[in-house]
């Protein structure tokens, strides 16, 4: 085996084990170097590389390394984001967060380079576990319960995926991780189960409320790391296995609108960004549903750029949270004076997500719309175009406006630490660089397509009109958009309230049944049987002796005393042996007769 056959995931997953052993800042430097090393390894991987191991007897060898342009583009952005994310976290001394983050990111790499469905599943579950641990690492009451719910949802999703894989294997005899055409597999229950399991991770409607619940409950750096990987590995798997599946068109379009509506309702700045993830992933899922080379390239390009600007947005929100301890829009505002660089860099991210010309969103997301146009999908194009306007509304303007401007609450925190600013600066630079010069990004897109350029004058003018009139609506309707200190119910209402109802029903019915059974059987019948069995001999003796004592003239008090004495002698073994034995034999005979009857 040579260096180029090592799965990149190994570097992060195994390298994470050394983190607790390293002292001080060396630990933080190490956490940046590891993903940089993985990035370099990916750049050297030939498409012939493979890493196979035997895992289950009776199953084919598991391939942990499959390299092509699709896996490479996701590998590049995952490792690049990991480097910058760990730079952002340079102030952090928490071994738990560093270790779980590295294993989580390594597992995402494992999914991306998985060569078959079994390898995919194993890394998939690793991701679920370590992302839940990363949420728990915030060590707050909110994160404790959020991590519980997160883990339960992802266990269900993972089981769907596993069931689907096993059914698919039984049906086809193959664990190949490859494109499954809708014509051939559109009625296959196993493949649909796989799709459902993957859509849970993609936060698809209505399975995605875990995202806005869990991510904002994580720590400052946890949120930055989490925002990139789970959903984008799902996008990768969908792009690999389900290109051109029509249901994804509807799901993606619904996600893109649902994310905007809920982001408009939200008060917490990180929940706004969480719903924004769902909105953006909706574009990617729609691109996969379109399924052409251009659409899939658009999805890959959008995922690449989205990870950059979304991380930047989460970093700016994280910096505000770090300095102020607050995340609600009702508690924030007026921070442009004391956190100007955070504001400027965050605003660049906001412009990029809105696909403002000269930013990375304009040169990536618009490929998906162009693909819809090429395929004459008018309704898809219309919904995505409307959603593009909505993105500017909720992420491009609302987020920076309510956090950095709006009502001045008098907060005057210090600017973000240098490491955070440098990390944000790197991502902001990339947002603008890719917007001005998308050539290097287009060169690594996975599929061949005709040359694309977003910078037709007509396209630029149309986009500027769309965005400026979206901005006009925001400020005209600003009185309606005032923040309130509330939460918005989502689809997780069904299992959060439902869990309480289920618990109460189970408690009342099953525990109630338990109590009745205990009272009647344990305390009642069993006790009585034990008592009878213990006193059977004496009882039979008294049945015969009491009438005799009465006949000999004993009164009630004397009979009682004689009965007590008789019972005591029998229990202590001081009555005549033969008499006692005869009584015991009689008692046993009666008991056996009762049982047999």
């Amino acid at each position: 085996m040579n260096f180029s056959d090592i799965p990149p995931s190994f570097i992060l997953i195994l390298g994470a084990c050394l983190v607790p052993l390293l002292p001080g800042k060396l630990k933080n430097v190490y956490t940046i170097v590891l993903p940089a090393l993985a990035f370099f390894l990916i750049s050297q991987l030939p498409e012939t590389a493979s890493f196979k191991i035997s895992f289950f007897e009776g199953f084919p060898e598991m391939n942990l390394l499959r390299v092509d342009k699709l896996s490479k583009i996701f590998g590049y952005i995952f490792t690049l984001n990991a480097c910058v994310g760990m730079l952002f976290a340079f102030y952090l001394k928490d071994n738990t967060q560093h270790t779980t983050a590295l294993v989580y990111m390594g597992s995402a790499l494992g999914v991306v380079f998985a060569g078959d469905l079994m390898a995919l599943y194993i890394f998939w579950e690793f991701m679920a576990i370590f992302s839940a641990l990363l949420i728990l690492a915030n060590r707050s009451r909110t994160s404790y319960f959020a991590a519980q719910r997160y883990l339960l949802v992802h266990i269900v999703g993972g089981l769907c995926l596993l069931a689907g894989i096993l059914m698919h294997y039984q049906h086809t005899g193959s664990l190949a991780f490859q494109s499954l055409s809708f014509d051939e597999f559109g009625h296959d229950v196993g493949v649909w189960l796989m799709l459902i399991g993957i859509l849970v991770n993609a936060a698809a409607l209505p399975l995605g409320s875990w995202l806005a619940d869990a991510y904002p409950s994580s720590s400052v750096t946890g949120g930055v790391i989490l925002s990139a990987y789970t959903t984008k590995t799902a996008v990768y798997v969908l792009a690999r296995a389900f290109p051109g599946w029509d249901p994804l068109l509807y799901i993606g379009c619904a996600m893109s609108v649902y994310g905007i509506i809920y982001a408009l309702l939200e008060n917490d700045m990180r929940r706004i960004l969480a719903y924004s993830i769902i909105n953006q992933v909706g574009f990617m899922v729609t691109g996969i549903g379109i399924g052409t080379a251009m659409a899939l390239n658009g999805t890959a390009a959008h995922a690449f750029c989205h990870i950059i600007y979304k991380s930047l947005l989460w970093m700016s929100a994280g910096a505000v949270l770090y300095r102020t301890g607050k995340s609600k829009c009702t508690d924030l505002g007026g921070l442009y004076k004391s956190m100007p660089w955070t504001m400027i860099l965050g605003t660049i991210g906001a412009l990029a997500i809105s696909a403002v010309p000269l930013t990375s969103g304009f040169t990536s997301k618009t490929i998906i719309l162009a693909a819809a146009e090429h395929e004459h999908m008018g309704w898809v194009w219309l919904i995505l175009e409307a959603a593009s306007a909505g993105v500017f509304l909720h992420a491009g303007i609302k987020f920076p406006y309510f956090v950095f401007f709006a009502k001045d609450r008098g907060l005057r925190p210090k600017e973000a630490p240098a490491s955070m600013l440098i990390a944000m600066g790197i991502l902001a630079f990339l947002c603008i660089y890719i917007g001005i010069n998308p050539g290097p990004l287009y060169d690594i897109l996975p599929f061949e397509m005709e040359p694309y350029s977003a910078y037709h004058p007509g396209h630029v003018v149309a986009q500027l009109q769309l965005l400026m009139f979206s901005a006009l609506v925001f400020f005209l309707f600003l009185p309606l958009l005032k923040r309130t200190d509330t939460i918005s119910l989502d689809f997780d209402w069904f299992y959060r309230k439902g869990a309480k109802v289920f618990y109460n029903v189970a408690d009342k019915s099953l525990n109630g049944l338990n109590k009745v059974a205990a009272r009647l059987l344990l305390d009642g019948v069993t006790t009585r049987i034990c008592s009878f069995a213990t006193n059977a001999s004496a009882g039979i003796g008294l049945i015969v002796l009491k009438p005799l004592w009465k006949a000999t003239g004993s009164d009630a008090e004397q009979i009682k005393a004689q009965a007590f004495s008789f019972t005591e002698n029998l229990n202590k073994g001081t009555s005549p042996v033969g008499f006692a034995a005869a009584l015991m034999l009689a008692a046993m005979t009666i008991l056996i007769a009762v049982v047999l009857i």
Partner: protein
Amino acid sequence: MSQPTKDSPPFWESKRNRIIMWIILYTTCLITLVLELFVHVEHPFHFIGFPLSSAVLGFVACTLMIIVAKGLALFLKKKVDYYEKDELL
């Protein structure tokens, strides 16, 4: 964490500055409309095949989204402790 302080008011709290910002916003919107006179904007579908369609689409779409959000807020918005008293999950 810092304590709230009071210093000079934000620039947007001045009525004059607010008027200036509205003028800038409307002027920018107008410029994007005027540009269409000098640049050919392709309309990919017939239902969007009229002048200034992107501006109309942006305005109408965002207005609708805000109206829908406000409507949903009537029964979706709850107090922040809505789940906490029943916290099991």
